[in-house]
């Protein structure tokens, strides 16, 4: 057991846990944009910063990555912390002025846009949180998308920005996207799904007859899990 303090509250934690995990278990809210329970932390968005005091040393750390330690004193709302969070959100609001999700989060945290930052005009809603890329690689196991370029030119795309060959149309990337950037179009009848420049044919459930998954995804699951494709013909609701 490790004893630490978060916002003056004495807390016990397991060795190896991160500050963010422990805070959440104890009902202390720390805002995040790139953290997901199914993914390893990456520390990209910097929204989850907290002030951590260990011995004489006080510094700003990312709670999603910072391991708990005996005697650690954490402040999740110090002035320095608030200033970092404010700047991060203001920068993201300027980068993605059309993202509804970001506006909502800013309102929740009481952060106004910085008017000195000219909003970007490319109508991108991507904040480069990397959740889509990490989900595709680590959860789905496909690696259909990644990054190209670096710095402010960096963007999420398929290799060489060509229509993805390896994408299975599962839509997990669109599901985890926190800012509404990745769009997945589904036809009215549900027989077709479009994502990353590809059009995927959907499969109907053998029981209820509704379209429930792309054929490519079912083939991928069958191939990687060894389950015969016939056994994957029923949707989650009917299973």
């Amino acid at each position, binding site marked *: 057991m490790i004893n630490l303090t978060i916002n003056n509250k004495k807390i016990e934690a397991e060795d190896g846990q991160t500050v963010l995990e422990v805070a959440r278990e104890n009902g202390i809210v720390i805002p995040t944009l790139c953290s997901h329970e199914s993914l390893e932390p990456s520390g990209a968005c910097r929204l989850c910063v907290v002030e951590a005091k260990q011995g004489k040393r006080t510094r700003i750390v990312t709670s999603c990555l*910072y391991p708990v330690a005996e005697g650690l004193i954490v402040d999740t709302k110090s002035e320095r912390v608030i200033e970092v969070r404010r700047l*991060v959100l203001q*920068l993201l609001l300027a980068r993605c002025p059309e993202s509804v999700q970001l506006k909502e989060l800013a309102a929740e945290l009481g952060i106004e846009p910085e008017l000195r930052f000219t909003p970007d005009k490319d109508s991108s809603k991507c904040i480069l949180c990397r959740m889509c890329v990490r989900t595709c690689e680590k959860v789905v196991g496909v690696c259909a998308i990644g990054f190209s370029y670096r710095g*402010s030119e*960096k963007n999420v795309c398929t290799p060489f920005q060509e229509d993805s060959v390896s994408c299975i149309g599962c839509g997990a990337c669109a599901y985890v996207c926190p800012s509404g950037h990745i769009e997945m179009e589904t036809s009215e009848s549900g027989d077709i799904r479009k994502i990353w420049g590809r059009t995927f044919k959907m499969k109907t459930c053998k029981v209820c007859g509704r379209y429930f998954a792309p054929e490519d995804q079912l083939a991928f699951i069958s191939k990687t899990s060894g389950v015969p494709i016939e056994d994957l013909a029923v949707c989650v609701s009917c299973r």
Partner: protein
Amino acid sequence: MMSKIKSFDELKSVQERLKAGRDPKKPCITICVGTGCLAYGTQKLVDNFREELTKRNLTEKIDFRTTGCHGFCERGPMIVISPDKVFYQRVGLADAGEIIDKTLLKGEIIERLLYVDPATGKKIVHEDDVPFYKKQTRLVFGQNSKVDPESLEDYLAIGGYSALGKALTGMKPEAIIQEVIKANLRGRGGGGFPAGWKWDETRKAEGEPKYVICNADEGDPGAYMDRSLLEGNPHLVLEGMIIGAFAIGSSQGYIYARNEYPLAIKNITLAIKQAREAGLLGENILGTGFSFDVKINRGGGAFVCGESSALFASLEGRAGEPRAKYIHATHKGLYDKPTNLNNVETWANVPFIIEKGADWYASIGTAGSKGTKIFSLVGKINNTGLVEVPMGTTLREIVFEIGGGIPDGRKFKAIQTGGPSGGCIPEKYLDMHVDFDELTKIGSMMGSGGMIVMDERNCMVDVAKYFTNFLVSESCGKCVPCREGVRRMRDILADIADGKGKEGDVELLEKMSKAIIDGSLCALGSSAPNPVLSTIRYFRDEYEAHIKEKRCPAGVCKALITYSVDAEKCTGCTVCSKVCPTGAASGERKKVHSIDTEKCTKCGACRESCKFDAIIVR
């Protein structure tokens, strides 16, 4: 090819034999073929010397040695003629024959090739008397002019690998580490972290294998210290690494070098091959049972890959992005194994510490920073080049005594140290003693040792914009404060330079800087605001002039200046009209010229070329 040396004793006898073969009285022409001098076309001069020596049947009587960088890059191509160390600079590519005939055969000095001390106007014959060299302590860099970087024999002849022999046969790993701790060798790559502590941590860390890495990803604009060491004396760096590996308990090392350094990579590749063949690297080094080998990894030119965790990612074959370092690389570095990373210059210091002892080493420098530091002195400075001085040397000594001051009699304004994320130091600190801690105290840093001198014609807003722009293009893009924040700072700086700055911009820049320093993932981001903060700190009035008065005091920011001719000073020499690329500057001979502001692109060519200071920029 050298046969395998199987023991320290055998190494000593090989060194003796090679040393004996070198007659100190025998005439020798030493010529610098570092990248700087090669850019002057020195290879042609080398070919000419070889040809002329052969023609005169002198190849046996006169030694001819090509070496790495001597440091005085401003004056290349340059040669030193031993034994008297006659120094010729700005040597013409066709001068080889004349030099051999006059100086080597007859002992005559060729006046036109001598260096003229601008301070006294005197011609200087010998290398040691040149003020640029005289004030330096060329501990690490001095060997560059003594060895042909392609020759292991040369390195052995000056006692090379003795420190390795001593360490492997006479010292325990722990004792080596203690020696490095006692010497207080601090990392020359930027952080200034004590190398010995890092070694100790890595040695004690659990996990196998342990890696030893040389960071040769030097990427600061204008800096080439590490490049010149790797190019000019690769065995010295290698020897340092092998000693470190033995102390740490590592059998595998890497050199992470920029692919933009082809000569450095060529020379270190050759050095590794030679050292392996000679039994100084690889299996059972010097017959001691210790084995260690080195691989070279060429980086793709990302500045951020000089940051340790990004360097590891790149070495592992992933994109060069940093990760949080809450667990030190000494415990979890490359492939999550204990890893010790030091830069080229740090490794190059190690053999001297082992050879001459920590006490001797620690006698050089200041209380907190020991030894010497190589600086790359560039910008508005007479003697552009690489200089090595003891820690604690003042900026004034470096800029005015070694660097020869500012060209064209202009006034010193600031010196930027520490690379793009360092700071600009104003005139009032010229007498400060340069070391790791002093530089940090005044808002700059040592970095890897870049020094860019600025004069009264440098605009500090423009300077801040330049470095910030560099960092924008070199940010990896992983974390928000660096990727987005530094770009927004650059935009605000560009606005200020364009006359579109707003009241409150300076305060906003300061506020953003604090949050970026606190919030960034790696040192690139957390030091990125330094150029802005230090220029605001010392040159706030210049920012104010741009914002409030829409004026660029240095006459640099194009949107805020106009060019005109001072009728009283203009002599009608017509030079400005000749250099003007758009025909804006014009006038009749011996009559006052004028500048058509409609046509003028504000390139500054007229101002630079006017000998009468008659171009007014307001």
